């Protein structure tokens, strides 16, 4: 029995070692109690918002699927899922189509923004290195991103659920809010962001002091949110709402403050060349979703290049999509349009190559490794000018044509003469946007916005009134949120 006691005592000692052995923190995931502790957490969470936007836009080339493919300027060589887009057959059964119908990735980015907006202030308390100023700057960036996300999805799905708070684990169904309501919410966010953001990350403003993230101004240009981006977004939000007065006010906030923003136009050659606009960080881009070879941020998928390039640029004999020669000649019908030659190549082949983006870094060529690095340009100066021209035209202001001609002359076109009718002017602006912004994810939204869908696609006005311009909601979303209803056209 004596032994037994010794043994049992020994075991009791071992028992106390148990707790230590079982309290191992996870090395693979960060739990709630370890997050929001220091400046690094705060910054990583902020960059998580940017990164999730990139993931949402690049997943199965979503940015171009929503923005370009349905318009039909691009034709499909053989992929059935892409053909379904051109045919506006959005219920088609493809794995990729399931992804495109699904808005979860956008809501993941929104949820990350909600989380950051709510939790960033905690970090100020936990880490003295993270000042209130630091926090306000990060939070303003996140507000901008949230506003941008809602702007982006309202254009795709129309009415969408509006979620602005952090999930508490209850997952209660949320119905769609009207697009107007969502836009108003985004406007408030963007306004708040504009007040908290610097014009530039040059360390010379009360909003942003010193080197942000230890990097100079150039590192952040076009990538980290600025006041100029916020105003540009506001202009678009108002324009999508149809409030052209406010939209114009905001385009002017950017254009009239050129001394602060430094934004400028880009030549057609610089727009399209390797390491040109689609590498970005220049002053012609306003907001880009970034990829960068130097940061080893590149991808084999998620880029328009993956669909548009072929031999000799990449080892693939046929691209997935192309713009037929007839369309090129039709769209770029005016003489001396530089874009007709710089945006396309191999015009005499059956499938010409769309050659606007071709960011295949020299480090991965010869022979080519298909790692693409072009940034997605969300807003750029030419686009803003065309928006301003549209606002002016809608408001009947006289100098609209001047803004339009400003862009036209830079692309080698003659200036439009005289004072055309409002409709003719809007049509000209629409066509100019189509020419200038092809392949940048604008065309379908322009078709909606300028109400040109019946004219340019096989959908009728009746279809559009029925909701055909917007995407159907995925089965998965409908199944998990009982308050949702399908867009009427896609029922």
């Amino acid at each position, binding site marked *: 029995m004596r032994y037994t006691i010794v*043994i049992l005592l020994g*075991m009791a000692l*071992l*028992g106390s070692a148990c707790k230590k*052995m*079982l309290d*191992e923190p*996870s090395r*693979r*995931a*960060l*739990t*709630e109690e370890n997050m929001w502790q220091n400046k690094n957490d705060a910054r*990583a*969470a902020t*960059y*998580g918002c*940017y*990164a*999730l936007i*990139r993931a*949402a836009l*690049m997943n199965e080339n979503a940015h171009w699927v929503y923005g370009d493919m349905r318009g039909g300027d691009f034709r499909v*060589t*053989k992929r059935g899922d892409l053909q379904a887009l051109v045919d506006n*057959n959005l*219920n*088609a*059964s493809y794995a990729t189509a399931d992804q495109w119908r*699904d*808005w*979860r990735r956008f*809501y993941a980015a*929104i*949820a*990350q923004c909600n*989380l950051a907006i709510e939790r960033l202030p905690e970090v100020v308390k936990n880490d003295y290195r993270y000042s209130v100023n630091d926090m306000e700057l990060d939070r303003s960036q996140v507000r901008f991103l949230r506003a941008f996300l809602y702007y982006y999805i309202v254009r795709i799905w129309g009415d969408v659920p509006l*979620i602005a708070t952090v*999930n508490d*684990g209850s*997952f209660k169904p*949320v119905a769609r809010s009207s697009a107007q309501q969502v836009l108003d919410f985004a406007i408030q966010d963007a306004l708040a962001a504009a007040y908290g953001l610097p014009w530039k990350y040059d360390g010379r403003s009360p909003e942003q002091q010193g080197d942000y*993230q230890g990097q100079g101004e150039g590192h952040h240009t076009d990538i980290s949110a600025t006041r100029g981006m916020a105003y540009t977004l506001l202009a678009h939000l108002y324009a999508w709402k149809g409030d052209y007065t406010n939209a114009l006010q905001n385009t002017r906030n950017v254009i009239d403050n050129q001394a602060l923003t430094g934004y400028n136009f880009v030549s057609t050659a610089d727009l399209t060349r390797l390491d040109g606009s689609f590498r970005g960080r220049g002053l012609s881009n306003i907001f880009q979703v970034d990829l960068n070879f*130097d*940061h*080893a*941020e*590149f991808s*084999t998928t998620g880029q328009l290049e993956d669909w548009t390039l072929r031999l000799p640029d990449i*080892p*693939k*004999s*046929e691209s997935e999509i192309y713009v037929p020669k007839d369309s090129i000649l039709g769209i770029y019908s005016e003489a001396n349009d530089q874009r007709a030659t710089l945006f396309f190549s191999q015009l005499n082949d059956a499938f010409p190559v769309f050659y606007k983006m071709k960011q295949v870094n020299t480090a*991965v060529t010869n022979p*080519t*490794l298909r*790692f693409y690095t072009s940034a997605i340009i969300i807003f750029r100066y030419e686009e803003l000018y065309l928006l301003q021209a549209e606002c002016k035209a809608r408001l009947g202001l006289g100098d609209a044509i001047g803004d339009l001609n400003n862009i036209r002359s830079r692309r080698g076109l003659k200036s439009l003469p005289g004072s055309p009718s409002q409709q003719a002017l809007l049509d000209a602006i629409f066509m100019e946007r189509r020419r200038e912004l092809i392949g940048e994810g604008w065309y379908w939204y322009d078709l909606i916005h300028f109400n040109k869908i019946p004219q340019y696609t096989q959908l009728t006005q009746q279809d559009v009134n029925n909701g055909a311009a917007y995407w159907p909601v*995925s089965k*998965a979303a409908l199944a*998990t949120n009982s308050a949702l209803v399908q867009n009427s056209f896609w029922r």
Partner: protein
Amino acid sequence: MAHPYSSLHKGLAGAAICLLLCNSNYAQNVYKNKDTTGTAATDSIGWLKKTPLLPRDTTGHLPNNELFLPHPQIGAVSAVDMNETKKLPYTSIDQMLAGRVTGVDIRTPSAEPGKRTSVFIRGASTLLLKNSDVFYAQPTYVVDGIPLVPDHPFPYDIQRFDLNRMGTEINLLSFLDVNDIASIEVLKDFAASAKYGPLAANGIVNITTKGPRSGRMKVTVNSWVGLSLQPRVKTVNGEFERDFRMPFYQKYANETQWRNFPRYLADSTQDRYFGASDWDEVYYRNGWSNGIQAAVSGGTRLANFRFSLGRSAQQGVADRTGMNRYDVNFGVNLMPVKHLMLTTYISGATVTRSRNEFIRDRAGDEDYLVNFESPPSPNKQYFQSYFTAIKDGINKNRNNNARVLANLHYDLSPHWSLNSRFSIDYTQNFRDLFIPTYLNDGNNFVSNFDGLSRRMMLDNSVRYDNTFADKHHLDVTVGQLALWDKWRYDYGRAYKGRSDYIKIYKPGDDANKEGVFGNLRLQTNYKDYTQSNLASFYTNVGYNYAGKYFVNLYLRRDGSSNVPAAHRWLFSPTLSAAWKISKEDFLQQAGWLSNLNLRASYGRVGRVLMDEYYKGGPIYNVDIGWNGNPNMATYNAFPAINAGFGTGYVTDDLKWPYVEQWNLGLDIGLLHDRIHASLDVYAKTDKDLLLKIPVMEESGYTGLVKNGMDIRNFGYELALDAAIIQGPQFGWTTSLSVYTNQNKLLAMPDGVQDMTIGNRRLLVDKPTDRYWLLINEGIYNTDADIPINPSTGKKMSYQGVALHAGDPIWKDLNGDYVINDADRVMKGRQVPAAQGYFSNTFRYRQLELQVLCNYAFGRKIINQAMADRFDFAAREGADDIKGIKEVNYWAKVDGDYDKYPLYNPWSAVNAYQPDQTLFLEDGSFVKLRAITLAYNLRASWMERRGIEQLRIYATANNVATWTPYTGGDPEAVDYFGYDQGYYNWPAPRSFTLGFNFQF
């Protein structure tokens, strides 16, 4: 000299027959009957007391597993006949189990030598939807009381394609040499396995090696040589392929599709694709295999040892594959002072594997798709150069394994003893891969994987046993166990090296360093680490009355580091009982009945969560990639962290999942055990399994991770043995088994009743292993045949895409004129409804012949190989993994081609999708698995020279298969029941010649 089976059946009564051939001493016919039902239980409990720490059986083998983990002896166990198994050139345990035990479902997607396979005991209790799921459902292998560390699926987290796990993919069990193994038992019910605690959740395969023995020095030498036959395939060339496709083109192709007619099929003058199709001469071969093993053992009662060395090599029949193993094992028993026994085992092994060179697998390794527009040429002349180019690459796969066991046993008194056991199992997993420019669109690729798995165990116990009044036997053990599991890997890969002569990738950040592989931006390093600790306390109380009534209660409390602190400890009891009816007075007179034993058990064990994600509520991680690019970590060069949207919202009150199992068994022995039968009925219920259920998409999360999935597996297992003839010259023994497994999903979290994951549907009250299929009823020949919805005037559609002539007729189950998931039915079992084996052994004098068949009925296969064949349009030149064609593409896919309608392969409705009844086939089979002929030399000169055994044997493996399945070997399908054609290599027919020699 008695016949082996007669001595075997003496007193035999278990659900399980355990043939323990000690030290391969066939000549002496010393079979020890490890009775699992209680006849010998008194002995096995009593032996420690009566003859403590002495060699127990006649050959001096010390039964280690009993020493370390006393058997409750009343459980459901099924064991392998090692005597037979040793004659077959098996390089891993799961192959030895196939067709030799009951209750086990072995799935071998590819017979590539040394590759990981899977074993499911009494059905898979967790869901099997993707490759990583298989890891969570594997049994624990225990070797001499050392629980082996399993592979962890966590490298899948950084893999874009669900193919091989990164690393070597070497079967962990290929470390063991069959000649070192004394016994293999499959422990199925918790009476047998609860003592392994949570490790037993998927069942236990208990392997005992031949340990040290006392006695005269003994040397054994075993060697064999084998030949696997080159498979025959029907090779075809471009002409065949073109002829196959033409009818589709003629019937359906539009201008674009004609224009896209693949170039390699367009020009029939070039012999690259239209020449002779003789690639198989280069690709396939006769594969040699050989093995040699030698062991020496002996010593005194106070110090004895066993030392063995082994080597075996096996060539695959295809693609120059193969494996090599070297192993060394050393065991020693020391008794430094009276009553103290120290046992130490040290084993080391290294296994290398030559892998296949599938383009698909390479794409998975590289995470990069090269241009697939031109498949490899079927012509030897061209294919040879490709094959030669592979040799410029590196594809080295090596696992090193070390196992150490130290056991200290001390007898305090005749009734009290102490045992302390410490073990380490340590596996390194190295892979070096270099793919030269020629194979890779001009860009080379290099990667290396350095993985480590480790499991340490410490177990201390005190034991008391005593017999009172000669009838009441009591046996009490109290113990404590700690288990530390750790998995780690470093993985680096780099693209576009400067030269094909630099085949090594050295991580670093100096771009100008000599020997740097290439551009630093094109180099990526990954590192991951995970662990799981387990602390347990247990008590075992066993009681039996006069060898008639047995009761055993096992209580255990486990704490896991991977469960949130609030629910960290799980209590798990197991109660088992047996009634040896044949020992009752009223049956003592029944001479025809030699054994009748009834046993029952109920138990519960926890299931360890291998992942570390679930112990602290919602998590944050880095998950900012997108389809095709899962591993992004930064934005604008800054690190990003996000809430774990991809992982799912982890609820913060997660608990242990656990398994409950009922087992009822009956053992009957008749006519002095010449006929023996054993029946087990079981119901095994997994409760509180974690499941990621769909959650509101607008939360951003891919799901909600919760406890609450319950899955039940139930069935019966029947084994029957009969010694039909037991003559002195001639003997005939036959064994037959049948076992079943049914599976049912009892519940899902939050009362979810119906859920879809990938291509599977989960429906409460339905099995989890069913395919989910559209019902195919033919073809619409004209547009006019397509039904029109009278209420809307719209044509029948497939998910909104209107059907046309040339599309399949799929049954519209809900009558809404839209074919979609609502029209799919759950159909076709993956797990056979019944399977088993049938074996006959004939003996004439020294000659012995065994014929072993195994069978499976009521099992379905999706013939995806055929579906893919017809679905050529979607696969041609697709910039997708499914666009890949291997050289094996130039072999005719087996099957009944006339059965499949000529659908429009370009149709947007995906006419040839595999998930339809059109491709569901009966996968039942009967296989003549092995024929073995053995001859025991016995002569007086042998005895004079001290030769104890000399046996020569010859075997034939995988001799014949009978199956209604049209697509080749019905066993060569993936883990999920899909026959992926040439990616699933059938086991080749093989022959072996070998000898066992002992002196």
